[in-house]
């Protein structure tokens, strides 16, 4: 059988198994599967305006995934995107209100500071990694909770992020709302509000793919990821490239957070920073990158699928089955998507072994 066909069969099979397991789960707990499936499709694409919602969630997922791809190609395991995203959103919020300025300029400033916030947060892990030898896996993971607490601290102090008393009503821990003129535009296409960030994210995906495969910088980065010792012998400074890869990865997550704040609408805090603002976009974005096997262009498709599950889940509740079922479906899907590459890898190894014994 041709290799492509083998891949396809494996993928289709494992996705079917994941869906079948979810269906069995719903049926055995007294629900029925068909309306859940219909609700998922309605909520993600079919109902009016849902395309826009889904694309709006896909954009930050893709941005986070792109950052993960960059640091991952350098052989660094960054698993703190959730915190970097939140820090980006917090920086964006703070500097947007602290600096003011006319709409478009403020918007650009906001996005830049969002990226800076994410980069700073990832930078802590990067500096610790290359200066003190602290594994970046551990520090990025631990910094997620710290970011959450730091933002909660800021949201409790009116000199940092908290809105003034007049503007927050009886809510506490909420930032000022971004003025209408400072928001990211959401052009209306075919009855859907498509956030501008979607286009930016897709363009960035192509740029990341090109930079990684077609430039010296990208080549050196990949070299570092494949074999750090060879890379160093060839004159690639590990700390230089490693720190920049981690920080750029964090900047992408921060940009995602800023764009959720400035253009996310109702799905993300309605132009306000609130506790729990990141709503797992960072974690899911990391999964997107890993499921896409650290390929920037493949991440576009995966981000869309994950976003569809996310927006579809809002509609599932009305079928009488708990909306949490979509978390289960998503988890099972990810596990299913991991199996084909693993199986193919093991088969290739077995073939290689047979080939060498045959030659001997």
């Amino acid at each position, binding site marked *: 059988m041709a290799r492509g066909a083998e891949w396809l069969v494996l993928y289709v099979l494992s996705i079917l198994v994941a869906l079948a397991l979810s269906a069995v789960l719903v049926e055995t707990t007294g629900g029925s599967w068909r309306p859940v499936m219909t609700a998922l499709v309605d909520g993600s694409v079919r109902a009016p305006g849902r395309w826009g919602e889904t694309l709006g969630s896909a954009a930050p997922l893709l941005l986070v995934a792109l950052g993960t791809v960059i640091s991952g190609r350098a052989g660094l395991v960054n698993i703190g995107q959730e915190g970097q995203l939140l820090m980006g959103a917090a920086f964006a919020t703070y500097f947007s209100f602290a600096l003011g300025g006319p709409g478009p300029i403020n918007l650009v400033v906001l996005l830049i500071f969002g990226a800076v916030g994410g980069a700073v947060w990832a930078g802590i892990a990067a500096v610790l990694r290359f200066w*003190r030898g602290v594994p970046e896996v551990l520090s990025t993971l631990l910094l997620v909770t710290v970011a959450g607490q730091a933002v909660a601290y800021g949201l409790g102090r009116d000199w940092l992020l908290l809105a003034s008393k007049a503007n927050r009503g009886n809510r506490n821990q909420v930032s000022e709302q971004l003025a209408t003129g400072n928001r990211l535009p959401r052009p209306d296409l075919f009855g859907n509000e498509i956030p501008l960030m979607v286009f930016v994210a897709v363009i960035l995906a192509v740029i990341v793919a090109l930079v990684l495969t077609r430039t010296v910088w990208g080549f050196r980065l990949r070299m570092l990821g494949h074999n750090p010792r060879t890379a160093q012998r060839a004159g690639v400074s590990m700390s230089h490239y490693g720190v920049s890869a981690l920080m750029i990865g964090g900047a992408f997550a921060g940009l995602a957070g800023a764009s959720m704040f400035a253009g996310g609408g109702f799905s993300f805090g309605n132009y306000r920073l609130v506790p729990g603002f990141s709503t797992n976009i960072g974690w899911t974005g990391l999964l997107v990158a890993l499921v896409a096997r650290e390929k920037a262009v493949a991440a576009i498709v995966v981000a869309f699928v994950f976003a569809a599950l996310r927006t579809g889940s809002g509609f599932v509740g009305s079928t009488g089955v708990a909306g949490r079922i979509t978390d289960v479906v998503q*988890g099972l899907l990810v596990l299913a998507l991991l199996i084909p590459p693993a199986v193919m890898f093991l088969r290739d190894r077995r073939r290689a072994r047979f080939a060498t014994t045959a030659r001997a």
Partner: protein
Amino acid sequence: MAGFLSAIANIISSDSTYINGALFVALLGFAATGEWVAERSGTLNISVEGMLLAGAFSSAVGYDLTSSIVVGILSGILGAIVVASLQAEMSHRLAADQFVVGLTLNILVLGLTGFLDREIDPTTSFATRWGVPLLEHVPLVGQALFDQRWPFYLLYPLIPFSWWLVYRTRWGLELRSAGENPQSADVSGIDVNRRRRQSIYYAGFTSGLGGAFLVFAQVGRFEDSIVGGRGFIAIAAVIFGGWTLRGTIAGCVLFAGALSFRLSIQGLGYQINTELLQSLPFVVTILGMAVFAHRVRAPAALARPFVRGIK
């Protein structure tokens, strides 16, 4: 200020601080002991959070079906081991990325238990309280350590047993070598990935105990997302402890102390910077790693997958 100091003195001298503290230590201790074993074999087992949650939920279901705490604990272990088996088989048999598997399992278990809790809604209760004669009357710590609901006492044998297993058995030696130098271990005939899988199963076992403890001795029932990130604190404790069991337990005690202190001081009506206290385990661990990074060494192959012949 004087009032604040006397409040602190109050907290330090009150039994309830130590009782709460001991409960927090126990949950972290169950999880961290298994996590420590898994990390010594080279797996950064992020799914410990999911294992705790699965253990808690399935022990609640076990009790709901049989009204027996023992069966509840056993089914809690079983539930956590199911999660462990997914983590182990996928990351150390199929060679899938251990972080993807771990993160996914956390999301999956959170969704699954939340979903099933809505559909089944198991009823549970507390286990009975056992006091150890004489020792329970020791001032301050007596009640906290020796007058608890009985699943608490499972921690006492578990810790020395785990130490013995890792440092004093052949299995433990092989497991540590799988975490330090998998290539050499492989050449000397140790099945590296098998040892790693077994260590994850052991983490599942202790986390299952932890989940059951949470339901039967600390909270008394199952709630949605009952674990609330304490699996991550357990991971922080292992790192803080520099991958020794003694240090890990010290980390658990320190972080549990902070959690308990927060509860008590809020109970007395004092406003304190809760954000700082909540992030304390993580900040302390990061600082500790930064300062002692050159003295304390992680298992050399921590979080590195082992595939024979490639390197």
